């Protein structure tokens, strides 16, 4: 094997040394591979015993089934041993110290006191005036399955002194749309958006994250009705393509029993928001690349549309018409509402891009404006970034 040194050239770096050239040079002390293997075994054992509660949590997050039960059984065995040896105490101590009883991959952002710029009247645009609507703006009628809002009467008057309180929750899909909505309406001082997204969640796994409990807490608003959100936006379900447990009974994904239970959970969620002066906007799932996911997403959307139609305070926003291509199927690239081709979907075939989230947030804002009769002074460019 022949090797030669590369000639250095000044503007870019000279050849670097091998690992840890910045450390003092010394002959590294070495060990046999067998001793290292024993060391790795000990490492895994010590880490496993001291983090046994986390092992149980990891096992519980597996999809329902026999494999999960085996994992849980093994993890609980380790946890029992750790507890008996009192090896669970250091982790508990650290958790208490950090006040991290429920550590999560959750990134929760609640923006309360927003620094809002003043309203400019020069670009005042009344979105519900068809003659004033930009030609490139799709109207809500393009979402053919979207029900007509049953409440035609406007809710309270929204003003800069008393802006609309908006809550946007869900999984990572909800995060995208919520944050784009924040962008969409920040130039007004008519609404404040609180984001409450919990990654990798859905309504099939309350053992992992319990959305009804979270939603109840949000609606309770710590007992202060004046802080209760009035417009709630929810988008999740991308992680719900897995079995559910109904008591001790395991419900196979997309089976009739699974769909019944899913419908029940959707209804519970919707009913939690049944307060006077409140509107709940449930954003449907986008088209999915994988046929299996697509079938489940279609069924979930049907449930959402049917349950929403039974409740006058709930609106189901079907985003599929917005995200299907000209042939009516999933596509990563589609012609957007502005008539230009755009990348609408992320490479995983589930998430929507920032661009598509912006379109969805524009539709949501349009719905909110209709319900509260809001005149948005910055609505001249509904699809702006």
């Amino acid at each position, binding site marked *: 094997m022949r090797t030669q040194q590369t000639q250095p*050239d000044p503007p*870019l770096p000279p050849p670097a040394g091998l690992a840890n050239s910045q450390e003092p040079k010394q002959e590294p002390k070495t060990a046999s591979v067998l001793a290292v293997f024993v060391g790795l075994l000990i490492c895994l054992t010590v880490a496993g015993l001291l983090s046994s509660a986390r092992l149980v949590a990891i096992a519980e997050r597996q999809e329902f089934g026999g494999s999960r039960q085996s994992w849980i059984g093994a993890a609980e065995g380790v946890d029992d041993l750790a507890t008996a040896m009192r090896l669970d105490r250091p982790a508990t101590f650290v958790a208490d110290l950090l006040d991290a009883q429920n550590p999560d991959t959750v990134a929760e952002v609640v923006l309360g006191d927003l620094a809002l710029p003043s309203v400019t009247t020069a670009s005042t645009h009344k979105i519900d005036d068809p003659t004033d609507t930009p030609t490139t703006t799709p109207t809500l009628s393009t979402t053919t399955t979207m029900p007509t809002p049953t409440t035609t009467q406007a809710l309270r008057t929204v003003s800069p002194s008393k802006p609309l309180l908006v809550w946007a929750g869900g999984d990572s899909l909800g995060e995208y749309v919520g944050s784009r909505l924040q962008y969409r309406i*920040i130039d007004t001082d008519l609404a404040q958006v609180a984001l409450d997204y919990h990654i990798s969640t859905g309504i099939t796994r309350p053992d992992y994250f319990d959305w009804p409990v979270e939603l109840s807490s949000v609606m309770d608003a710590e007992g202060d009705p004046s802080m209760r959100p009035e417009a709630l936006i929810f988008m999740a379900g991308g992680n719900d393509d897995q079995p559910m447990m109904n008591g001790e009974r395991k419900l196979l994904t997309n089976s009739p029993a699974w769909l019944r239970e899913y419908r029940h959970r959707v209804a519970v969620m919707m009913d939690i928001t049944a307060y006077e002066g409140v509107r709940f906007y449930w954003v449907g799932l986008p088209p999915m690349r994988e046929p299996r996911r697509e079938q489940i997403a279609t069924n979930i959307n049907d449930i959402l549309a049917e349950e929403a139609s039974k409740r006058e305070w709930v609106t189901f926003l079907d985003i599929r018409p917005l995200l299907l291509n000209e042939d009516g199927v999933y596509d990563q690239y589609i012609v957007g509402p502005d008539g230009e081709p755009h990348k609408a979907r992320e490479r995983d075939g589930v998430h929507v891009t920032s661009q598509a989230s912006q379109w969805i947030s524009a539709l949501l804002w349009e719905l909110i404006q209709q319900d509260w009769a809001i005149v948005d002074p910055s609505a001249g460019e509904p699809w702006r970034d």
Partner: protein
Amino acid sequence: MLFPTFTFAVFFLAVYGTHVLLRAHSVAWKLAMVAASATFYGWWDWRFCGLIAASIVLNWTLASLLGRTRNQNFPFQHLFGIASDNAIVALGVIVNLGVLGFFKYYGFFALSFLDLVGADPSNPPIPLLDIVLPVGISFFTFQALSYVIDVYRRKLDPAGLLDVAVYLSFFPQLVAGPIVRASEFLPQLTAPSRPERVPASEAVWLIGRGLFKKVVISTYLASAVVDPAFAAANTASRQELWFGMYGYAIQIYADFSGYTDIAIGLALLLGFRFPTNFDNPYRSQSIQEFWRRWHQTLSRWLRDYLYIPLGGSHGGKTPTLRRVLTYRNLLLTMVLGGLWHGAAWTFVVWGSIHGGALAIERLARESKRVRWRLPMGPRATKMVRWFVTFHVVCLAWIFFRAASFELAVDYLRGLVRAEWGDNVSWLVVAIIVGALVVQLTPTRLGATIRPRLAGMSPPVQGGLLGLWIALIVALGPQGVAPFIYFQF
């Protein structure tokens, strides 16, 4: 399969057990490593194992052809003369970059083209395809290119198919580097095995350090300040935006260098020494120095396989033309380096900022008429240089991190115009400042700890690493986000 997961820990233990058993049997060991790497990679998407296999076979074939043209006994010598060497290497470059371009850049360039020509979106002249990007394609493509080009340059003899397969698929560096060249890896693969010589303490130190950087520092900064700031750049306070920017600088360093540390440590345990990839980059006093300290394996690759072939700093017949060409080469290298990270205009801007800064620095050094020396003492000059360099790097990171060019502009605008606010926690500030202090004043922590670790037996080292991992698990969140560089 992510490094900081229980699944990977079990996987690696199994691989290491196999390594112990088969280390002395070269062919069996290599087959086992290829199988382990295929399992590791297939965990994301097994379909792309075929892509790596195709890359292995293609590049092995091309390099073998390059090697055979030098063999006078080769039967088709007259067909594969010197001229055909150029054709073979050109074919290698075109196919490797073609595959990378198709998977990574097709959509970007197709959209940009349609935008440029104003094509009818209902009937575009080129189709917009739904392409799934294979994890780590940029890394293994660059490694494959380095192999074929080094054989072409006669710096390396062609290797056997199994050796090439181990090299291109070796799981510790498969998905996010470091970009290990064939000339660095293959000699170690063919060296006689020395099972008694594993630098365990060094590996333990690197793995422990890498896990802490990734799971604790990177993840905390991401959720505490960076993600919120970038998610709501037009509503965040100026304080959030500034610390979001600084926080991202630390986050991406902790994330990527943490991955590299773990990768180097795992490779050490398996008997391979990888090149370093980071050397306290945020202590740099110029952008040139930054690139000598940041992602060193990429900057070396870009220098040797792009910048120098473009002419480097030696193109042009007159001094003026030489300078102009040098600036062009710097800018082009960094713009393409930016595009290597991702198919978006934000990465082009990021590369342009670095390329432009490198050109300006060179201009300043070479200019004889302009005095660039600052009217202050050497220590103050160093501080100013560090301050300017650090902030150029940080501002460029905004384009690297932002989801779109418009969001990056919003972010930059907010840095100046937003209300100051007071909603950044002291812990965030302390972590950012602490990370910078560690880089600016190397504490030689490793030099202090490693000799003590080396004095212990591997089982004791393993026990200590287990304790350290338990602490990291307790401090970190449940679940770990993928490494930032996986997307590249």
